């Protein structure tokens, strides 16, 4: 896995986002209309595609796309 592929997957799930909006240093909370629904979508995506569990605590401890990517990369078997 690599971060650009990871970003592509995230953008595909958030279908209100223009492709190319997400960058490694994008802060999730700066996105328009960021909501708890997006947190669920991220958890489901990462669980389904990488078999990695992301908790609510994980999400509150991070801000950017690359921080999320690092957690996933670390936990991928």
């Amino acid at each position, binding site marked *: 896995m690599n971060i650009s592929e990871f970003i592509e997957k995230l953008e595909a799930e958030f*279908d*209100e986002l223009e492709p190319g909006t997400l960058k490694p240093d994008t802060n999730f909370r700066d996105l328009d*209309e960021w*909501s*708890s*629904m*997006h*947190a*669920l*979508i991220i*958890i*489901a995506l990462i*669980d*389904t595609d990488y078999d990695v*569990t992301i*908790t*609510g605590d994980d*999400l509150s401890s991070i801000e950017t796309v690359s921080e999320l990517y690092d957690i996933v990369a670390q936990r991928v078997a």
Partner: protein
Amino acid sequence: MAFFTVNKVAIKGIAAAVPSQIESNWDYDLLTDSEKKLLVKTTGVEERRRAPIGTTTSDLCFVAAQKLMSDLNWQPEEVSALVFVSQSSDYYLPATAIILQDRLGLSKSCLAFDIGLGCSGYVYGLSVLSSILSATGLKKALLMVGDVSTATCSYEDKSTYPLFGDAGTVTALEFSEAAKPMTFNLQSDGSGFEAIIIPHGGIRNRASRASFDKKEIDKGIVRADYNLALNGLEVFNFSIREVPQALKNFMEDTQSNTEDYDYFLMHQANKLMNETIRKKVKFEEAKVPYSMKKFGNTSSASIPLTLVTELREELQSKSLNLLMTGFGVGLSWGVSSIELDCIACPELIEL
């Protein structure tokens, strides 16, 4: 481990009733248009049924039971057990099942009691009542399952209000030497009891004036302590962790696989959660019916309601092997496999 098989009990029929009042999430004016779109896409819930004040879960179960008994040609005096599974009973006490015994004209020799479970309640209730019939040889029984959840959700809480709908169901069980076994695996994790909770009104936190004080928990989440509170992230993670694992263990223990089941019935929690579970256990989409689009999360009623609204024709004319799972409030979850052989299944009743 609560893994067991119940023999000699057949399901003869299933019926469901919902309130006629439809509420659409497209009309939920606490959300912007794009929030509504995201809500519907993520939860899968577009419409829900809402019971008017004064209509109870038992009222919905009652009309469903009257219709089903008439279709099955069951006489009231033949029914020897009635179990009501709900977290929205008529009164704090007595148990609602006992009121239903009288209302349905059942005999005084009928045993009746309540079970207080939600999302896992159908699987649990089926295991309890079928076990009673199997162990005692009692002939006919009614399992009445449902909830009026809209009564306890705060309108200003976007994390609960758009999700839940009301429904009441009845399942008719009969002792039968020829019946195929029903298999169950039931699980609990009380460490998560606060994940879905109505904090006030029980004895731990007695109802007081403070129970009705509205508080802003988060943006778009305003509720009081007598309202339902839902920790969406925690429930989501619990469900996608425990439920697929429980299903995999169940299929291993029963030496079955997804091919052996005609349909896989899940508690209708929300679309994203259910689809994540479906993908993890690798059931094909065509085998996994959903009723949440039109009825929302109907708590313990969700599995029998989905059977009635989505599979009615086939249930009446075919023999179907079903895998079922209920999961949620408690935390509590269960898996069951049953065979339904040309059962009575009247059309959905609107009250």
